[in-house]
């Protein structure tokens, strides 16, 4: 177990270095001179030199890269020249909205997918299996931003039940955006839950539990679902990035003042340091969540730790 934790932490290092490398490279990918793109053609030489320096473009790439990586390790995501504030401060204002939306979306997904997945695995496998399979494909083919538009149309414009814009109505403002992000993913997770539970219910210890005369419901929930949930939860953790990406997109449709809107205002004002900071933050969140999921997984299922160490060792040659 200890060996696994160390190994897993060591894998983190090259990934974070890579993230920093790509983020750093972004400044060199802009067609033309980044400072001129940011501040317009008629910028005075003093400001020009200043901004160039603050972006780290006056030093060679490798030096810039090292400084930037060091800053990230210190938790400093840079300075927004447009807003004249540190990127950390700007992000700290917007992140809670996106976090709330992500949590609501996760709840929607779990609350829809688990009951449906269990039901379709337990009751009449073939008919419901077909319904879940086909239904989830169709449902999942709906992009979250499109579902957002449809929900706005139905609940906001036609029925006038729920707010369709802004975040000033408390939790109510998050209902439609949460559904828009959560429902397409719920379709996928219904499939995953069903497959996982079917897999577990085919195991011998389930047969044994039935053989001991335990009630059906108890066997399915206590023995079946508890074990079937492990892969589902792992997958959920690994998909956190997708939930966040969905949240970012959906925010723009519902005009929520979160990271999504921040990205767009940054694109419009050409606030490149802010954009880079956001990208790094998202990557770091995903990497850390994956780490936590892996560790929890190993804790729940010690067998996996062994397998994972072996696989990673093999991968490392």
């Amino acid at each position, binding site marked *: 177990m200890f060996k696994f934790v160390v190994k897993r932490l060591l894998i983190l290092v090259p*990934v974070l270095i890579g993230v920093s*490398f790509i983020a750093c490279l972004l400044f060199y990918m802009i067609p033309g001179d980044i400072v001129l793109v940011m501040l317009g053609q008629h910028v005075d030489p003093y400001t020009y030199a200043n901004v160039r320096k603050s972006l780290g473009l006056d030093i060679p790439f490798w030096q810039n890269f090292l400084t930037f990586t060091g800053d990230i390790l210190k938790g400093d995501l840079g300075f927004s020249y447009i807003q004249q504030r540190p990127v950390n401060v700007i992000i700290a204002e917007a992140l809670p909205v996106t976090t709330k939306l992500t949590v609501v979306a996760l709840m929607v997904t779990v609350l829809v997918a688990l009951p449906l997945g269990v039901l379709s695995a337990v009751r009449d496998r*073939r008919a419901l299996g077909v319904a879940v*399979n086909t239904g989830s494909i169709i449902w*999942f083919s709906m992009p979250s931003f*499109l579902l957002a538009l449809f929900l706005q149309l139905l609940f906001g414009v036609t029925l006038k039940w729920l707010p369709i814009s802004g975040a000033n109505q408390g939790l109510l403002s998050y209902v439609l955006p949460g559904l828009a992000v959560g429902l397409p993913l719920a379709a996928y997770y219904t499939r995953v839950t069903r497959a996982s539970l079917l897999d577990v219910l085919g195991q011998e210890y389930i047969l044994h539990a039935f053989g001991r005369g335990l009630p059906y419901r108890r066997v399915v929930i206590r023995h079946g679902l508890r074990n079937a949930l492990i892969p589902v939860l792992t997958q959920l953790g690994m*998909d956190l990035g997708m939930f966040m990406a969905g949240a970012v997109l959906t925010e*723009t449709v519902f005009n929520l003042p979160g990271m999504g809107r921040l990205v767009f205002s940054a694109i419009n004002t050409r606030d490149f340091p802010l954009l880079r900071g956001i990208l790094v933050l998202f990557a770091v969140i995903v990497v850390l969540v994956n780490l936590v999921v892996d560790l929890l997984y190993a804790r729940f299922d010690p067998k996996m730790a062994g397998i994972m160490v072996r696989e990673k060792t093999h991968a490392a040659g």
Partner: protein
Amino acid sequence: MLQDKYVSRPGKTCPYGTRVFWTGAVIVVILIIMSLLAPFISPADPLDQNLSASLLGPGAGSYLGTDSLGRDVFSRIIYGSRISLSVGITVLALTLVLGTILGTAAGYFGGVIDSIIMRVADVFMSFPPLVLALIAMAFIGPGLVNLIIILVIMRWSQFARLVRGQVMAIRSEVYVDAARVSGARALGIIARHILPNCMSPIIVAGTMSIGAIIIDETALSFLGLGIQAPEPSWGVMLADAKNYITIAPWLVIFPGLAVVITVVGFNLLGDGLGYLLNPKQYERAGVGRGDFKGQ
């Protein structure tokens, strides 16, 4: 309900996988024909503006109504299918080539090559997919070519992983050993023994990711970072429609349905292929491994 009856008697009629496959295939073929014959089917020029006939509802004069600039929605949807399909297929082809080369190299040779390729893949996988595309597009600027490049960069790691896993599994088969001891070169073994035997999951995942690629293209165009107006991309149409959602809901509904039907078509096709190419695995798990996710 008729369906359930069919499924409960497999063998007597056409099995589930075959039906899924054909449903998807019919949708996809219709789409392809529609995009190829666009100039002959569409009643109007997709870029033709007519401000005196703007925001007309469906029915009167044009099948699916007109948008804020009086352009015919039906024609724009048909021409939009050209953009979606060509982006979907181009990105998939490039991703497959890149992913297969890197994945095979990693899986077959192992060691340092494997570590390097997989660590790089890990890096790309740690960005939330659309957020990376969004921000990268903001840096390099919108447009068709940049869009395709970014979508390939976003996706290759997934395929590299898939191919690597397949290659590693097949590399240790006896017939590969036999080829090796009989003196075949590495490239020959890969081309003749390994790749042909690991095609089926790649075909399935590939078909399904066309749907996801089309979603990505639509999303980025919707946000103004992909295909640019006035091109009739479905995403561009939806972005425009968003502003008229209260007075002209058909502008959201029809392009939206076009996206959903297209993606459903490719996903059904992929799922059906999965059943047909690998029935045992699908039967055991009850479903496919859900390779279609990637929104």
